């Protein structure tokens, strides 16, 4: 699983018993560690800034200018493995190499930005202050990113399934409740939603007119055809052809970016029947949730 990675804690210790780094050195070290995917806590001797939080149980690497010998540290409760390194005189690259060696030796995974095969954190984030639980997103998403919890409330369930750079579901949400924080522009990136955004979204095609209209009519045509004694099972080619038409429709709507569509594996997409079934299921769920909410408030 893309997200099955355990966190690592790095502390740059500049408190009692260690020499502070020069500011430029500190910046170079911290920025490069962050750019490699590490989280870094800076601990200072001064009173300024409250002490960072340690998370028990997560392996800890402490680095600092300890003048030749790094202290031996041990978690008295025995929950956290602590490694210390004296980095006096070491260049930034050497410090990074030291930390990396330790991480590899401990077999701790790390999502590394910019490395081939790493997952860009791209997934929908729901603003529940805006969401009305209408389930349009659940109905629309072809990749089962959405689901509901026990209380029938919409949830982002399978964020790993989300297609990088595809903000399509945010565009079908009538309440502008879906954000992609790494999107270029507002309000999808989390910027304040203004009245104009809301008006625009309200006017938007809903899922049935976007996909359903076409799909429903094609299904109807097919069921007519099925009645005919000349009808036969739909060939895989025909199914693929229908998906293509479906995608063309999406493309023309401008809702899914071209580059995302270009990368989609057509054969892995749900069939029009599945899309229709999902839409009906989502509508039923939305209705059930609405009734449950109404019953609760009465």
């Amino acid at each position, binding site marked *: 699983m893309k*997200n099955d990675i355990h966190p690592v804690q790095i502390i740059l210790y500049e408190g009692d018993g260690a020499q502070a780094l020069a500011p430029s050195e500190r910046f170079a070290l911290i*920025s490069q560690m962050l750019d490699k995917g590490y*989280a870094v806590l*800076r601990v200072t001797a001064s009173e300024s*800034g409250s002490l960072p939080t340690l998370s028990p149980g997560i392996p800890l690497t402490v680095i600092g200018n300890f003048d030749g010998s790094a202290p031996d540290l041990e978690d008295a409760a025995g929950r956290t493995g602590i490694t210390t390194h004296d980095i006096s005189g070491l260049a930034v690259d050497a410090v990074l190499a030291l930390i990396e060696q330790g991480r590899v030796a401990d077999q701790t995974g790390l*999502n590394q930005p910019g490395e081939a095969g790493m997952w860009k954190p791209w997934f929908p984030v729901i603003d529940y202050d805006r969401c009305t639980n209408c389930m349009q997103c659940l109905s629309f998403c072809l990749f089962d990113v959405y689901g509901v919890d026990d209380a029938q409330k919409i949830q982002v369930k399978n964020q790993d399934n989300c297609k990088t750079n595809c903000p399509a579901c945010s565009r079908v949400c009538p309440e502008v409740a879906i954000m992609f924080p790494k999107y270029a522009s507002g309000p999808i990136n989390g*910027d304040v939603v203004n009245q104009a955004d809301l008006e625009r979204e309200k006017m938007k095609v809903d899922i049935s007119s976007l996909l359903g209209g076409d799909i429903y009519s094609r299904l109807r045509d097919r069921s007519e055809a099925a009645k005919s004694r000349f009808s036969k099972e739909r060939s895989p080619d025909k199914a693929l052809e229908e998906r293509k038409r479906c995608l063309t429709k999406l493309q023309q709507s401008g809702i899914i970016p071209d580059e995302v569509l270009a990368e989609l594996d057509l054969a892995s997409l749900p069939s029009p029947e599945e899309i229709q079934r999902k839409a009906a299921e989502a509508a039923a769920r939305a209705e059930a949730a609405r009734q449950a909410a109404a019953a609760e408030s009465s």
Partner: protein
Amino acid sequence: MSKILYCRCAFAKVVPDATKDAVLEKLCESGAAFESVADLCEMAARKDERLNDLLAGDEGVKIAACYPRAVKWLFHNAGVSFPNDGERINVLNMREQNADEIMESLTQNDDE
């Protein structure tokens, strides 16, 4: 003094480099202790248990990241409740605000 949290947004180019570098540079020049993470979105996606600890307690937390609405619901996405009062948690937006403005808020004493 509030806790300071800096997000590097390392997996995307949406926060201007000049702003995120300038904020980190100034933090490094200050005497402040601070926490910094590669990418809050990535941590939220993994439901990193550290997110819970970052907001734990009663003290103030100042977060240099992006749009406050996105940050709030990212934490929520990770199962971490984000206090609504706006008093304890203050999100500074490196996509919109400039580095000086952000630094001023980050290093301002809470009782000022």
